[in-house]
């Protein structure tokens, strides 16, 4: 699974085209390549309970529709995929 800046916990979204790095306030894009400081943001696609089913769609716990790029940092059930 390829990560990019929008998957990083230091990514601050400004709009759908761009954001900035929370660490140094530099402008970056959501699809930019990650740097050495990359640290994964909890997202459904990184969760044990998420199962991918088709492009950009999957399920949570096998019974609820979900999508891989959902920010799951406020989801009480999130568990990092091993």
């Amino acid at each position, binding site marked *: 699974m390829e990560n990019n800046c929008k998957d990083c916990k230091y990514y601050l*979204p400004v709009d*759908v085209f761009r954001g900035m790095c929370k660490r140094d306030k530099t402008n970056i894009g*959501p699809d930019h390549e990650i740097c050495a400081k990359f640290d994964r943001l909890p997202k459904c696609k990184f969760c044990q309970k998420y199962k991918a089913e088709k492009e950009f769609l999957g399920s949570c716990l096998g019974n609820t*529709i979900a999508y891989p790029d959902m920010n799951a940092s406020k989801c009480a059930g999130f568990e990092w995929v091993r």
Partner: protein
Amino acid sequence: MKSPEPPLKEAINYYGHKPVESIENREAKRSPGARANKARELYFEAKSSASVEFPYWYTRRWEELEGEIPIVRRGEAMKAAFEHLTPVIYPGELLVMGKAAYLRGSYPMPWLSEAFFMAAEDKLYKEAMESGKLTADSFTTVGKGGGNVTQSSGNVISIAGKFGLRKEELPILMEVAKKWKDKSVDDIGHKYEQLVPGYKEKEALMRSVICMFDSGYTLPQGREVVNFYYPLQYGIDGIIRICEEGINETAGSPGMDRIYFYHAVILMLKGLQSWIRNHAEEARFLSSLEKDEKQKQEFDEIAGRLEWLSTSRPRNFHDALQMIWIFHTAVLNEDAISGLSPGRVGQVLYPYWKRDIENGTIDREKTLELLECMRIKFTEIDCFASMGVVGGVLSGNTFNNLCIGGLKKDGTQASNELEMLIMEAGITCDTPQPTLSLLYDEKLPEEFLMKGIECTKIGTGYPAWVNNQVAMEFLLSNYGHEGMQMEEARAWSIGGCLETSPGSWMPLELDGETCWIPGGSAPATSVGVHFLSLPKLLEVTLFDGLDMRSGERIFPSHGYALNSYDELWSAFKTYFHRAVHVLTLTNNIQHDAWRKISPSLVNSMLKPDCLKNGKDIGQMGSRYNTTFNVESCGTANLVNSLASLRKNVYDDKKYSLADFRNAILANFGFKTAQETGSYSLIDQVATEDYHNWKHIHKAGLDAPKFGNDDAYVDRIMADWENWFCTMTHEFRSLYDQPLYACQISVSTHGPMGAVTMASPDGRLSGTTFSDGSVSAYPGTDRNGPYALFESASCWDHSLSQNSQMNMKIHPSVVKGREGSRKFLELIRAYMRKGGFHVQFNIVDSRMLKEAQAEPDKFRSLLVRVAGFTQYWVELGKQIQDEVISRTEYEEL
């Protein structure tokens, strides 16, 4: 063969002298402080962006609770959505939090309407597949148009020509939307509105764009004033305690429906508390990363403030400002809303500010900085709706109207020093939101009024000048039967762009003192029949029920031979009445679906007396509920057209009605606006056929025109207004209250003009109507502003929720101190005549022309449209052309 030169320029001369060659700039203005300037630069670069986070969690929780009591189910769904929103804080912010996880973030609400996405599914998927073919360079093209994402590119899909959505969120949006099929307010409302006798007529009215949109599922809330009393007085924990006490008092007793409301409000508030605490946590995280000591301290202060406000009432001015912003945003998150106005913020917050100034914990400089930050936050608000609503009605605006001036509870003048600073912030940090309205009263001090002039002169279009006494008279007439008296009428404010909205005085306790603060006390004051195109209705009248653009029959024959002006007038009234009748009934059903499926919780909790009554606003929990209206568009074109027919056909008998019908069908020998790509009359292009129609066209153009103090046409205006403002009372709202007239065009005069054929006043097919309701048609008011005022005040404005006048004044006219004095006297003259509202564009038209040609150079240029200020580059061409063509006064 070359087309002949259009002779229109001879027929329509702009009032005043020929302008000098060079473009006149607006009077020099000041700049915002460094913090607000940086935030505004970030705003200028940011695009409108949609996300699916809120609707996903809302829908997920909603589905889990099948069978639960609907209002509790909604409370649970809102709680889930708020507590899962990604917290976002931008560097330098002093006020934090927003609708969604983008600077200009918003999201669709499929529980209101999912049909738009379903209908566009194939197209959106196709764009998602193809968008990658566009290079990143094409993004620069998207940039023209300010923050609008007008086309798909890269990994971004354009929705409704405005909102960008990440490609990876499109499939989930579609899946979530599908879950609301046959369950949304739109679908349920549509299912049952078809039970209304004559329903098919409603569909024909919508197809012909005689009526513009349904408010029940598009924008069910808004055009109203928020009330911040409860969070300020009790804090969130305090409100939860009020709800718990309400449950204890009523559980198991008759009338126990109240417990479900209280329970739902508690759930929603718990969600808000998580939302606020999540932002506090984010601020702590950002602080942990921060190397700059000042910024680190600010992040820590933000965290501390949010942690405090998640439970408790504000301690100071900064807390109170943050608190009202949180609740303003929270209301915006519960529905698709435009025109949610914060109301008289300077008077609500004055007790906190005065105390902080006196104890030295804040100074004027810091206050100005905070107020500038407030302007940026309000400007970031976006409303996700379909293209027709966002572009055709709203022009991308959200109409957060902040009012200043007016009177206090005891009848003395209400302005204060904080309001002076609010105006100063409007000058230094000129942004579209919040727009300002000055509630003009003769008791207001001269210094305050002159500050208003200073602000108006910089060309932002605000403050709008609104007549306090006329508004109170309207409120007492229309809300008196619900118990409104003079004292409470003084608490009013503007909701939305120009909707007179009732308010109440609430007893805020601070340091042992009771401060009476004003706030809104009614739900949306502008839902109902929206909007009715008056020139299009006249067209249908002239053609005996047919829409001549489509050929579709809208109404059965009116049965009048139209042999006299009285018959024409009667036929027009018959159709108008018929349209209002069916649209009122269908609209009531839609709003009934809304209150059952998507009852308001945040706004209801805030509005007196919902907490006391244990009822939401949809169950008439508010103090005042006479809030449905009939909105019109194109008044001056209707009146001018009637005057033309009366003069040319019935009085002078120069032409027959058939002659005018034929001329209309031939568009007086001109190309249509769609063909020319320009929407103002002055730019239209004649065809070779023009010479066959030029005489009748000239007769239409030469007929008496509204705005010139001409009794012939002003009498027609008065007849129309007196009839319209009275006939609306015959119809009953969902809440069994009479409707009233509302007369603002917002942006509808563009699209409504676009589908209307030529009109008897000489206006050509597809061109934009006159704006507002007492504005003259561009170029036709030739006798100066005072003559326009005479015409506009030929009827009693207190009969209507509003009347709207837009004027364009050349900057040279109001230059300097002397110009300011003249300007104030001009406004005062109109107010003294009983004019309800006037607002100004202080701008050289040639600058607007230049901005139209080279938008990139004018990213920050603001203009006043019809009740709102907007960035020029974010306006559609129909409205740009209309603003350019407005009569430009070059002397007063």
